[in-house]
């Protein structure tokens, strides 16, 4: 069987001592930062990106993936014990998780969350192994028009899925595209939007933009709201072993959550937050006793936790096989790959099978590490969650600046980050989500290239986008999403599900 040979290759890569260490380091760092309130995967990844540049490509991507799902897991720990979600995808876990913790069953909630996440992680990994090759084979047929339509769809859907107006979300994506094409035009050699500034000739440093928009803005936001949550009290962990009845209820929730999460992860734009909310709503709908929800129902913990982990895994499928990230976080992973000299896209399976299958296998191992290593460390994580802000703030600043400086040993990148911090602050005050911006920023140059090439093939006739069937289908889906976005019922449901920051 082909797939078995591939998975065997993956494990050979992932079980290499160095990669195992990167995986462990990534998962632990991710959890460590994930439990800190307010610091989600976007902030964590943008601060730690520069650390991975010196590593071999496989190690770097394995570690980044570990940070990503480690942060997803860490967020749920604080959600359950302190009623303080480490990030937005675990907001919904607070509802029943904290209720359980107050009844002295916090330990059980955490164990169930970890097991549900593990189950979802394994399923997600299998899905990647199964769907990845199929999708990339299909995508090998993609020409420029298809690629353009696909990217446009990703931008529209991401714009539409974030909290607030879909039109503003798409505007943010376009703004990102505009910033993304700053620098020397590869076709003509003309320097665009550089205004004679030497540091901009190679384009805006991607990590600087990410650090400015996510890390700096998060710090400033924390400074402004610091007084509000001065007092944090943690519920005790208590026992760990769930009862048989609890396990039975949780198992159903985990399975349904995994299904919902896998679907939303594949969808561009939705991400872990939407997945976890959708799973919770589904769980409540199918439950025979919906009144138990909100009062410490264990399936209300299992289902969203499974969903956000499953979504975290399946989100890699479009990113790696199509080269088109579906969310801000995946845009960062894609950026890291490009910096490593690897072009994500359908050819990745042919050109870099070690990287792809190594990552798939390492995800499974990473999920195992999460359960085996992190569960015993629960007490440590709850202590970490209460690190005072006056330590956290300078630490983030120093790491972000030093890391950024190491990329090209140029102080200009730090100034770029500061400028993006200011821009991000304006976005924050206007209620504009930065996730579509970073996606547009990464996709911008590719979007332009494919647009130009399509019209070159079509001899200047824009109808090429609808005469190619796959491209037409993708545009049709995009149009349907736009129409859905205007419908009031859908908008209300979306606003409920996306309260908070997109992870």
């Amino acid at each position: 069987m082909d797939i078995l040979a591939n998975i065997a290759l993956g494990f050979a890569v992932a079980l290499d001592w160095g990669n195992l260490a990167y995986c462990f380091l990534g998962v632990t760092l991710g959890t460590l930062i994930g439990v800190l309130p307010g610091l989600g995967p976007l902030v964590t990844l943008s601060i730690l990106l520069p650390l991975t540049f010196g590593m071999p490509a496989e190690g770097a991507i394995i570690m980044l993936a570990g940070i990503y799902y480690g942060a997803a897991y860490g967020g749920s720990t604080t959600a359950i014990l302190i009623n303080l979600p480490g990030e937005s995808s675990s907001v919904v876990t607070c509802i029943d998780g904290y209720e359980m913790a107050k009844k002295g069953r916090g330990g059980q909630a955490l164990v169930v969350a970890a097991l549900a996440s593990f189950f979802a992680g394994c399923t997600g990994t299998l899905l990647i192994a199964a769907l990845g090759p199929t999708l990339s084979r299909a995508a090998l047929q993609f020409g420029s028009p298809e690629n353009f339509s696909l990217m446009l769809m990703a931008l529209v859907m991401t714009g539409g899925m974030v909290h607030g107006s879909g039109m503003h979300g798409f505007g943010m994506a376009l703004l990102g595209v505009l910033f993304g094409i700053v620098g020397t035009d590869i076709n003509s050699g003309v320097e665009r939007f550089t205004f004679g500034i030497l540091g901009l000739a190679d384009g805006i440093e991607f990590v600087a933009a990410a650090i400015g928009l996510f890390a700096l803005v998060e710090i400033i936001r924390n400074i402004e709201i610091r007084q509000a949550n001065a007092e944090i009290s943690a519920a005790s962990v208590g026992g760990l072993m769930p009862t048989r009845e609890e396990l039975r209820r949780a198992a159903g929730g985990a399975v349904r959550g995994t299904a919902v999460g896998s679907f939303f992860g594949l969808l561009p734009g939705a991400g872990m937050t939407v997945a976890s909310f959708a799973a919770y709503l589904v769980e409540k709908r199918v439950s025979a006793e919906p009144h138990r929800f909100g009062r410490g129902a264990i399936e209300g913990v299992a289902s969203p936790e499974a969903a956000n982990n499953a979504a975290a895994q399946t989100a890699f499928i479009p990113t790696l096989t199509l080269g088109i990230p579906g969310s801000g976080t995946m845009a960062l992973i894609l950026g890291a790959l490009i910096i490593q000299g690897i072009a994500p896209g359908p050819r990745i399976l042919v050109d870099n099978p070690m990287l792809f299958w190594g990552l798939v296998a390492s995800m499974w191992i990473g999920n195992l590490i999460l359960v085996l290593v992190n569960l015993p460390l629960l007490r440590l994580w709850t202590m970490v969650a209460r690190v005072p802000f006056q330590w956290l703030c300078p630490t983030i600043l120093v790491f972000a600046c030093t890391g950024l400086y190491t990329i090209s040993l140029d102080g200009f990148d730090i100034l770029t980050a500061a400028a993006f911090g200011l821009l991000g602050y304006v976005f924050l005050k206007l209620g504009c989500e930065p996730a579509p911006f970073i996606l547009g920023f990464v996709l911008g140059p590719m979007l332009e290239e494919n647009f130009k090439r399509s019209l070159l093939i079509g001899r200047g006739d824009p109808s090429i986008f609808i005469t190619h069937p796959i491209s037409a289908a993708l545009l049709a889906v995009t149009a349907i999403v736009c129409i859905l976005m205007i419908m009031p019922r859908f908008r209300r449901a979306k606003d409920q599900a996306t309260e908070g920051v997109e992870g």
Partner: protein
Amino acid sequence: MVRSKELWTGVLFLLFGCAGIVVGLTYEMGSLSRMGPGFFPVLVGGTLAVIGITSMVRAATSHRILERVEPFRLSGIVWITASLISFSLFVRPLGLIAAILALVITSAPAWRGRGLGEFLLIACSLTGIVVLIFVLGLGIPMKLLP
């Protein structure tokens, strides 16, 4: 309406969209089948400007109470920006250690440590950790001292 998020988001999009158009027009436009470097920026800028205007019109004609722009509290953002600028100025000529100290000192008013002792502890341990990780661990050739 005057202070609504809807209006000012529109203004922001319109400004950047117009900038894209105006600057984009200074580059060669080319034709549809052979686009010059100016074509795509003008197209994107134009779409962005249209979205901006739509948003502004929506703000002006809306009968509902619109969400207001949240108040700007300048102290945090000013100190954080200043701390990054000082890092970027110091790191080349004076080395990493001086730059980190400058960063921590300049940003201190924003996070308000409890007294000098804690401040010194943070500054010293951070410098140590960073040197350990980046210079000794990752082997990045950075100048540490002037």
